[in-house]
């Protein structure tokens, strides 16, 4: 694991695209993960945003995100196919070799394993001529894949070489998920790991009864309460032969009202914290699949 192999998810930062991009660059990041909204909301238009990114020294590790894609039917399915095409074209334009896809949370999504597998296979096929990988991520509340094990089952059922799994450690810890799921993951199917920690909060007011379910604030690794689990997770990734990408993705309401440079500095310090503790963990270098 080295500094250059870890991306910063710019969603964690506030401000215009160029401000966030510059904050990431000036804090040493050479890879970023963008939200598609970052690009299309750029005041100069998407072409200008793409040109800005292409001119910069950063490599785009992935674009987020396609959501609520699988398990739909009829016009809704066709609508989502068109949305997917738009995002794949955006990936290609900006040079992102991976599109993040979160498991469907819409009520209409059929809990039909066969349909889900076929839809994910179709999405992966759409991505082939564009030279893009599809990273499928569990989503709390999804009836299709709410946890890592379910998401991996979907990916395995679809069985396409450019379809893999993305894991969000923030979701994992917020859901109190164990690390054992990783031991059964196939490294080749694991495309990306989003690194963040969490701190549990109780958000009920003083008059409310005890026993409220905790809420969580997502923070960078080293700043949360699951630091040891996070380090153990990365060690286990080493054991299974993970060679995908890492990104830091601590999106929270506080960081959204702080200067981008401040957040990027937190990310940089977090990464140094990780590297210091994992200096003996020799993760294989990211297998560099060609990007568009």
């Amino acid at each position: 694991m080295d500094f250059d192999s870890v991306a910063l998810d710019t969603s964690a930062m506030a401000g215009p695209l160029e401000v966030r991009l510059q904050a990431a660059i000036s804090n040493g990041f050479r890879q970023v993960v963008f939200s598609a909204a970052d690009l299309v909301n750029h005041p100069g238009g998407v072409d200008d945003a793409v040109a800005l990114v292409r001119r910069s020294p950063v490599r785009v590790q992935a674009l987020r995100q396609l959501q609520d894609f699988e398990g739909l039917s009829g016009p809704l399915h066709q609508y989502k196919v068109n949305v997917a095409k738009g995002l794949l074209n955006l990936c290609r334009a900006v040079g992102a070799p991976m599109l993040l896809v979160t498991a469907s949370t819409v009520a209409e999504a059929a809990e039909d394993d066969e349909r889900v597998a076929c839809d994910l296979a179709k999405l992966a096929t759409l991505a082939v001529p564009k030279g893009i990988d599809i990273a499928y991520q569990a989503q709390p509340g999804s009836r299709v894949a709410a946890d890592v094990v379910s998401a991996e089952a979907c990916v395995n059922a679809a069985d396409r070489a450019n379809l893999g799994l993305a894991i969000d450690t923030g979701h994992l810890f917020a859901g109190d998920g164990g690390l054992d799921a990783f031991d059964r993951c196939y490294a080749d199917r694991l495309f990306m790991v989003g690194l963040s920690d969490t701190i549990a909060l109780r958000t009920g007011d003083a008059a409310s009864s005890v026993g409220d379910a905790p809420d969580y604030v997502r923070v960078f690794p080293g700043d949360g309460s699951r630091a040891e689990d996070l380090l153990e997770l990365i060690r286990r990734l080493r054991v299974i032969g993970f060679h995908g990408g890492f990104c830091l993705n601590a999106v929270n309401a506080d960081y959204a009202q702080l200067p981008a440079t401040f957040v990027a500095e937190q990310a940089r310090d977090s990464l140094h914290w990780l590297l210091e503790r994992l200096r003996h963990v020799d993760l294989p270098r990211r297998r560099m699949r060609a990007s568009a």
Partner: protein
Amino acid sequence: MTARDLVPEPLNPLGIDGVEFIEFVTGKPQALGGVLQRLGFAPIARHRSREVVLYRQGAMNLIVNAEPDGADPSATFVSAVAFRVRDAAQAMRHTLDAGAWEVPRRASAMELNIPGILGSGESAIYFVDRYKDFSIYDVDFVPLPGTDPNPPALAGMHYFGLVQAVGAFRSSEWVDFYRQLLGFRQLTEADFVGILPKGTLLQSPCGRFYLQLVEPPEGAEDIHWDDGLVRIGFGTPDVLEATRLLQERGVVFIDEGALHPGEKGALTQVYLGSVTFELVASRPARA
């Protein structure tokens, strides 16, 4: 259970029955035409309204489209392959349902009602179902006066396959692509042919056409390596005889190091900065 188990793949879902034509796009049609004529092709018809010429040799149709619409108007590259299929409309439905992109209707010759999907590097894969009693060329093309519309093949040459450049570590997904959409199957190394037996070899479901997927060599990260169809392979039952005949016509074959014309195959020099052709030992299939 995987998607492949859930939806068993028929052996030849589209009824592929060989190649109807291969298309080049070029900004140098005269120079490319010269190369093709040395290879035994003859121009036999011209498009009614566009800068497009049909070349033919034996059963091989080759389109030269001189209306480039890409970033480099002077480039020459293989821009399309058209497969003969049982039902072109059904082929489109099957492939679009499985995740293909329909090619945009460009204003060029072979897109007149010929459906197609996006392939590698912005190339197109067309589906043609009128090839037995009716020729797709009869409508759009005007025969060139004084030419033989059916020039014989030199040394039994026929379309054997295409070489496709793919990005690093991306062969597997292209195997999935061709298997899922077109019914191609991956061959083992024991089935490799030609003088460049590397990469991944796929065979069409009709057994008459091959795709060779080639990734950039290890340690060549600095090489510019675009996805796309990079070479046509011509089958011939006698490579040495074909090589001799083509050399007499001015075709230059690479003959250095491990690459030299032999019984298994031969590779031409690079023409027009990007175009090569390969001979492969192969007997033409009976139509």
